């Protein structure tokens, strides 16, 4: 098994590791998951956004046709979906596999990673079944460098999610892609701000707003620890990205607070109760019954 410290070595050997993938899939199908586990472990430890060797996709259809649902789900994030042939069949096979595997954190990470990647491509987007989007609500913790994070912060994905008009999914999406590991594209940032104004201005959205504010506070706390601290987990981070992240997440928090102050409260409630409400709201899953503003 490769260690996380070996990522340079793993990166230099990613072609050989990818060449092993078809055999690993065959073996897993035959009841020997060790090689596949090693492959997935190496892919995660590589700290490589595109771990896939582009020649693998020539054989992706054959590889996935013989794979078990569990393998399809776990391997999918490491396949470049944009240039695949037989896309529709593969997306359907993947979607079927997601419903056939039991939930684990690893599975949720893989499904969300693949979903955000598939949603990036206009040709693939229509083939995504609507129920797959609910996986976003699981809010798995995505690794600092992964396909899901990379594609999730792109405009086509942001638009696809926002067009769903499901506040729960949109909130989960924001919680996934807003992180100390990535800055947002300007267009995505603008779309996010617009969405905060449009979708989260309802008085009923108090609990969601509280959760988002708390998430942004956590990100800003992480960013305040400095670039070096973050580079330990994501060596690709640079000063420029770091500064942009700080600006963007501060502005997002300000936007959320603006939305909060814009929402009127029909009942006068003391400040201490409002604080308690927001805290409870951000830690529980029930919907806010009253149109209360966050403090």
């Amino acid at each position, binding site marked *: 098994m490769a260690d996380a410290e070996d990522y340079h070595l793993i990166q*230099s*050997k990613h*072609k*050989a*590791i*990818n*060449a*092993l*993938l*078809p*055999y690993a899939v*065959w073996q897993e199908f035959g009841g020997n998951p060790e090689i596949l586990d090693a492959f997935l472990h190496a892919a995660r430890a590589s700290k490589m956004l595109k771990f896939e*060797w582009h*020649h*693998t996709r*020539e*054989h992706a259809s*054959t*590889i996935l*046709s*013989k794979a078990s649902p569990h393998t399809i789900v776990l391997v999918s994030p490491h396949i470049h979906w944009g240039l695949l042939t037989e896309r529709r069949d593969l997306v359907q096979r993947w979607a079927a596999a997601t419903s056939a595997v039991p939930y684990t954190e690893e599975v949720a990470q893989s499904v969300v990673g693949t979903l955000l990647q598939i949603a990036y491509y206009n040709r693939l987007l229509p083939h995504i079944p609507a129920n797959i989007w609910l996986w976003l609500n699981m809010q798995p913790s995505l690794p600092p460098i992964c396909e899901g994070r990379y594609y999730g912060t792109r405009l086509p994905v942001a638009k696809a999610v926002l067009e769903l008009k499901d506040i729960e999914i949109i909130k989960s999406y924001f919680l996934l892609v807003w992180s100390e590991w990535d800055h947002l594209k300007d267009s995505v940032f603008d779309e996010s701000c617009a969405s905060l104004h449009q979708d989260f201005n309802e008085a009923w959205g108090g609990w969601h707003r509280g959760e988002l504010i708390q998430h942004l506070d956590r990100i800003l706390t992480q960013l305040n620890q400095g670039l070096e601290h973050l580079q330990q987990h994501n060596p690709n981070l640079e000063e420029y990205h770091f500064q942009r992240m700080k600006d963007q997440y501060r502005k997002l928090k300000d936007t959320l607070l603006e939305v909060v102050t814009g929402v009127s409260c029909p009942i006068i409630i003391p400040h201490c109760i409002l604080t308690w409400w927001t805290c409870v709201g951000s830690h529980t899953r029930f919907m806010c019954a009253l149109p209360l503003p966050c403090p």
Partner: protein
Amino acid sequence: MLGKQCLNRYHHIDQGTEIERSQNRQRKLDGITVWYFDYMVESLPSMLQVALLLLGCALSRYLWEVNTVVASVVIGLTSIGMIFYLVIITAGTVTESCPYKTPWSLIIRHLVSWASSTGLAITSAFRGSKTMRTIAENVQYYHPWWSRREITPFLKDMVLELPHALAIDVYHLGKMMVWSSYAFAVGACHLRVTLFMDLHRSPSILDWGVDLQSISWVLQVSLDKSSHLAALKHLASMMELTNFNPTLAKVCFNTFTDCTTVNNCKVVVIQGSEEVAAVSALCIFSTISHLLGTDPTSSVLEEVHQDYLKVFPVQVNFSDNQFYYTMNVLRCLYFQSWRRQGFHWNGYKPPFHEHAIAAQNFVKIAWFKYQETPGKVPCFVLRFALHSLSLDPLPSTSVIANCLLIIAIDLGCNVSDMIVGYR
């Protein structure tokens, strides 16, 4: 008659397949070389010539007492014959290209060269001798030593210095003899061990050697396509190429080029030679990949490389041919740019045995290239492994094993040349 008898045995055509007959022929040929059959056959006429000379001499001797005139005529004829024979021998000895060669001229040539080398050795030994040096120095110092004035001191010095010089020479001579005896004993032991190993060597290895030699012979001598095809198929089926003659790679390449032409930058196979072309391409691949590991500095490799560049420059394509993949792999080996550009393996679904051979050859290339550029197995080799492992259904176990070996080599696993198949 004796020679004729032996040659009849050699000419006897054994029953069996083309491969078995070729093996028998090769075995007989090897026997001829090992047992110096050619010397034996050549010595037979020489014996007759000696007998004729003796007859002439005896007849002359006998007739001299009976009739001097008749004897003179016989002596004259014998002498003319002998002079003619001596002239032929001399000419054959002096001139290498002289067509009138007899075994005697060859023997004399050997003797002369031996004598000259021995003479040089003796001369150098005398020059290095302390005794000879002492005498020479004294002769030079007391020149003219035979004069009445010099003879006494000259002899006196000689008596005083010669025993010491002789003792030194004897010491060196003895030391040299001891070393020679030791070297001779070691050589004898080595020879005995080699003979023992030869006698007890695995018959399959001997057979492979015989097979490879006979294949090479068939390809070079025969003009029959079916013989070529049989020989090449046998070569392609051989998983072990130990102790093969590097020229076999060139022979295979020549066979391939004989079957193909280049027309408008496209390789076209001559009608009826399709199978020979495909199998010979596979044989080129096998022999080249084996040579790369066993003898990368071989001149044959360079010759084939040059011939390949000359016959199939980079703009020539092999598409629509059975040997498309095989020849493109060679192209990847020879052209750096082509290696980067690569080619698609999509349609590569070779027969069972051909795939196994290709996989084994790719392992050899991977191993060699990894040694040449540490840490790097060429991309086209890894792509072969990826393609083979992606096939549905999976290829044979040997192909899978070899593909995994390629990956293991690239991952830096310690793979010995024995596993790769170079030994």
